[in-house]
């Protein structure tokens, strides 16, 4: 059953074809997927107020309906140390096309994973887990499974990653919280099954995993284009 509040977000963005980060994160939160603390600021004053509330350092990301890949357009700044730097970043982001505000967000440290979904023509909803970040397509270290996932399936996915040892504690690093990762994958799988009719693909990238938690640091939901011939 598609939850009403989630459906409303999906329907509201149909015309745009995709859902920008703040709204994607609101949707994920409704499905109980953990996201970092964040605020959508439209003015410098608001951005500073939110950053104070979160505590420096913070991340600032452009919100723009015209920018799907924010990093590629210089729309992401991490490790912002103080209000002056935040103000400078705000000005820079405000000059980007389609500027519709800045997402001010808590800095989270962790291993960068990608969790994705795609509605495959032959197999319907499939889930992807891999080494994430902006270079995900260089690593090409991903595993795919047909959704819905179950606990056993998730264990085999994590084991099948080539970089599996980065998750289980490599060279004295603390292992990532695999229980949190499993919970996140399970919730995501359920959400994808729920909204399969509406979506084309989803990137949760990066998902930041550390020894305590796994949080979705960025999200992009691409919606299914209207059927050809339909109004």
């Amino acid at each position, binding site marked *: 059953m598609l939850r009403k509040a989630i459906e409303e977000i999906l329907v509201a963005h149909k015309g745009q074809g*995709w859902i920008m980060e703040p709204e994607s994160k609101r949707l994920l939160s409704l499905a109980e997927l953990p996201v970092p603390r964040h605020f959508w600021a439209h003015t410098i004053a608001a951005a500073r107020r939110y950053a104070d509330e979160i505590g420096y350092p913070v991340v600032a990301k452009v919100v723009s309906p015209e920018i*799907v890949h924010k990093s590629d357009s210089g729309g992401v700044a991490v490790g912002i140390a103080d209000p002056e730097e935040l103000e400078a970043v705000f000005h820079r982001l405000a000059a980007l096309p389609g500027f519709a505000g800045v997402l001010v967000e808590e800095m989270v440290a962790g291993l960068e994973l*990608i969790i*994705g*979904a*795609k509605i*495959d*023509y*032959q*197999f*319907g909803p*499939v889930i*992807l887990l*891999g080494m994430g970040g902006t270079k*995900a*397509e260089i690593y*090409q270290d*991903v*595993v*795919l*499974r*047909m959704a819905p*996932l*179950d606990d*056993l*399936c998730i*264990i*085999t996915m994590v084991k099948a990653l080539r970089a599996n040892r980065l998750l289980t504690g490599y060279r004295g690093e603390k292992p990532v919280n695999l229980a949190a990762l499993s919970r996140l994958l399970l919730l995501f799988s359920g959400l994808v099954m729920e909204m399969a009719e509406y979506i*084309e*693909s*989803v*990137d949760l*990238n990066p998902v930041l995993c550390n020894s305590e938690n796994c949080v979705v640091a960025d999200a*992009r939901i*691409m919606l299914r284009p209207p059927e050809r011939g339909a109004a």
Partner: protein
Amino acid sequence: MAVIGVSTTNDRHPANVIYNKNRHRYPVEVFAVNPRGGSRQGECVFTRISEIPTPVDLAVIAARAEYVEGIMADCIKNGVKAAVIVSGGFAESGRSDLQERLVQMAREADFPFIGPNCLGIYAPGQADTFFLAGERMVLPPTGHVALISQSGGILVDQMIKFTAEEVGLSIAISIGNKALIRELDLLEALAADPRTQVIVFYIEGFGRNEGRRFVEAVRRCPKPVVVIKAGKSRAGSRAVSSHTASMAGDYEVFSAVLAQFKVLEAKNETELLSFCQSLLCYPRNIEGRVGIVTGSGGHGAVAVDYCSDLGINVPNFSPDVQANIKTLLSTSIQNIAAIDNPIDLTGSAVDDDFVNVANLLSQAEDVDCLLFLMLPYLPGITSDVGARLGQVYQQLRKPMMAYVPLVEKYRMIIDGFEFNGIPVANSIEGAVQMVEALRRPPSC
């Protein structure tokens, strides 16, 4: 069987070929149909199905596309049970409308048909709707592999390869445009077919969500399913807007989901044959910890390399097992044989060395299958060695695979293995693939 479209003037017409081979080679009562009627070779050609004096089980339709709809209506009206539509000229050449009408009519009448644009069914010793003259075909023996193929050409080619390796078929079906009966329907039918033990599909692609229904049916199927896929490269350069869509291409998803549901994907024809040979002997899964036994260090090293490529475990033997192996060996090789995995019994080994090691490893926990790489030309090896190792398997039932060069000279060794239920490969790589076939991970 009624063959519709038989010509009274052109005996090379596909319908004539089908009529002739079934009339002369199979235990089938076959009737020729052509609206023009007449006779050929003293046999009556019926003008319509309704004239045939006995009930018809199968109509093979090899008439021009535009006549097929009328012929099918006639079949349904006269209680024919099913059809193979050999004719082309449907969806594959832009006439999806003609094809759609056939599907609708068949659905309404609950009338199963295979095709159109296909060769249909080859059932060894029973019937054959392939429009290829009997003397041109290479016919595999009757056996237990079912081969289903979208492409007729590939199917016939595979039948040649299966014959060469003496792997028998329960049935071979070319489904062509698969307008009504598709892979999924055949999977369900063959899962219940007592003659079929292994089901093989050559697949170009599934329809929308059809792959999902297929793997869900595989989950319910108690028999191993092998798929060989054509069309792995990405179709066109569709704009891809997300990392996920870019990294989860059509083939990547296909391959991953099949593995998820324990379908074995054969990457090429050699693998396909090795998989089938192995699965016919051992339908059950193993973890895949292989013990390798040979008379040549080189053979052992090559096999270990292939195992490592496929991620197959070749574990070290425990000190106990190694010590026991040593005590079992002929005195002449006790100090020269390599007794850890892979075991190299050396060129001085005799049959007894192989048999004793097989006995011991069949009872050792260290490995769950054994791979014998035989060098039949070694002076101490006799033509009995296959049968003697086969008897060890018959007693202790730990899966064994063997590599023996495939030449007539070594036939008795090969038969000795095979008669005892051990698959024999004609290459080291093939023997390792036989292990791979059994190593399907738990589905999730």
